[in-house]
């Protein structure tokens, strides 16, 4: 009996040693590093962008076409936290919304930004129901709305303009400019060329999330030239049935010397910035 007790004590202490090590190291490695991390997640044919600000605030823009976004969140949100500080649904179409339904069920949402639009679909009805059940308040935003986080990260809404009337849901996409120091990234949802240029956007940006998965009608070329993005990222699924992204669009981006990344070829694309310089990491 004593022998057995001793044996299991050894075992329990070894397990405890292992568990404590994993927890301490995971905690240590998850601490914010003072840099802005922007990840265009590989979620297939849809959009999902995850940001961790220098102070460790978490922002998620769209959730992709299925629950793949959950695994990405699992590896980005530390084990001890279930919080997304700012969630943005650009517009209520399935390839942007579906993943968010599970996200809203499983995570604590600090602030939710949406545009003034609705969709008559099953998934949108489910989304509304989850928001009610979890008592998540949505804030309808429009151009000019802004949030400044304590770590000096700015999130500025540049589209849709107030009182927009359009038959096309894509036109209602919430477009945000995320800035930290001299670094700017423009996240565009599906707001394609018919609503470009976005309100008040005339200065260059470093990172440009190409709207509408790089479709033929995604870009107003004159406007994108003024943005002169150093890199452009297309969130698109492999072998999708829409023929996204459009080859002409890629050629155009290359002629204005913008380096093009695509999630179907490069996987998840990460940009890290300290406010002055920045670099990219891609999965493939």
């Amino acid at each position, binding site marked *: 009996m004593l022998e*057995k007790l001793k044996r*299991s004590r*050894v075992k329990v202490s*070894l397990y405890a040693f292992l*568990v404590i090590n994993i927890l301490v190291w*995971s905690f240590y490695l998850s601490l914010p590093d003072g840099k802005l991390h922007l990840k265009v997640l590989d979620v297939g044919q849809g959009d999902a962008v995850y940001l961790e600000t220098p102070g460790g605030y978490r922002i998620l823009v769209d959730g992709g076409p299925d629950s793949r976004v*959950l695994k990405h*969140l*699992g590896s980005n949100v530390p084990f001890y936290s279930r919080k997304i500080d700012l969630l943005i649904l650009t517009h209520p179409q399935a390839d942007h919304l579906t993943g968010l339904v599970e996200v809203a069920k*499983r995570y604590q949402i600090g602030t939710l930004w949406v545009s003034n639009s609705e969709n008559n679909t099953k998934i949108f009805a489910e989304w509304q129901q989850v928001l009610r059940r979890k008592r998540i308040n949505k804030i309808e935003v429009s151009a000019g709305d802004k949030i400044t986080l304590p770590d000096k990260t700015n999130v500025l809404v540049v589209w849709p303009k107030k009182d927009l009337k359009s038959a096309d849901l894509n036109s209602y996409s919430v477009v945000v400019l995320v800035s930290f120091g001299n670094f700017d990234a423009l996240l565009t949802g599906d707001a394609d060329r018919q609503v470009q240029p976005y309100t008040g956007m005339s200065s260059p940006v470093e990172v440009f999330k190409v709207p509408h998965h790089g479709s033929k009608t995604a870009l107003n070329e004159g406007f994108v030239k003024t943005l002169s993005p150093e890199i452009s990222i297309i969130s698109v699924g492999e072998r999708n049935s829409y023929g996204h992204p459009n080859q002409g669009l890629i050629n155009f981006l290359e002629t204005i010397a913008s380096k093009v990344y695509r999630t179907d070829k490069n996987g998840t694309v990460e940009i890290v910035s300290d406010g002055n310089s920045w670099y990219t990491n891609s999965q493939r």
Partner: protein
Amino acid sequence: MRRSRIKSPFINRKLPILVFLLLFLSLFFWRVFSYLPIQTDGYLKVRSTLLEEPKEYGKWQYFSLDVYRVKANSEHELNYGDILLIEGEVTKSRFTDPKIRVAGTSTWRKILFNIREGLREKIFEYFSEPQASLLAGITLGSKEDLPESFKDSLIQTGTIHVVVVSGYNISVVAGFLVGLSKFIKRQYATIFALLVIVFYTLLVGAEPPAVRAAIMGSVAFAAITLGRQRLPLYSLILAALLMTVISPIVVTEVGFQLSFLATAGIILFQKQLLNFLSFLPKPFSEDLSTTLAAQSLVVPVIFYHFGSVSAISPVANATTLWTIPIATVLGFLFIAASFTLPFFAQILSWVVWSFLFIFTSLVEVFSKLPITSFEFEPKQILPISVYYGVLVLAVYYFKYVRKAKAKQSKS
């Protein structure tokens, strides 16, 4: 005198077991192959209870019913626990757009389902992916949430059986608990294990494969208590045979095959493997020997059903599987705590997360190693036969020939 000492234990005790086992295995596989083709094509009427939530993709919804896959029009309002009458043409075990009538509901199944849903939500509240769906898989038997990429990694490393088949877990959890007879009498440990089996079976929805696994597990592990060496194996085989006679179709179920083989493996090889692993610190050799013993008979059947085989699979299994019984047992504790003591549940969830994290990280690492997984054609009988043949020979060699030689040289 010497001759008889060498031969008698073998002839009197072990040979019948081996012969019986071989006969049974051949019967087992013969049934698998002779039974399948009859059912898979033609016009059929099936009445059965729906034991999953249909998955909807646009116009169609998909689900399994009995042994069939069904592709049905999304307009049918179908829920877990509905008793369905399905009529239509079957091709390769698949119904496409059949006539469907809901003939009633199984209330107790619905209640179990709702309980399980509640528990699942608790898991998702505390855990992130892929650990959340892994825990839901091993504790509640819900398989639908696994992220596709993680599922691929599990298949590549040959560890998919941990989540897809509730039967396997029942055997392992029961074996683990019986092995826990450290502080309490063996009899009490067994009673405890039996109670856990019943609870676990109800929790995973008491689906037929789980119930069968539970019966086999209970019979075999209860027999262990009686302390007679051969009894557990014989009772296991008897239970399995009875079920096969009642419904021959069970032999085609992955769950049935895996739970039978895992239990048999534990009964047959656990002690021997423990001796063999005596160079390891005792606490680890105990867990490892249980998992390896269960694995020894199960591995080829997994490959048979899931196709791909990676050379890394034995290593992946040996290094990751020890975390599963711990995560399962602590996972149950966590679930219980999440309803009563949220703070304690939070702490416990981190501990459980650590074990799941070890499992998921190792699986991801192993699946990315450049060791090619040779794509076995699934459903091939030859590799399985070779494997079991070699296993029987190896057991024979180690147990009898080597022992006999050692004894001879001693004397």
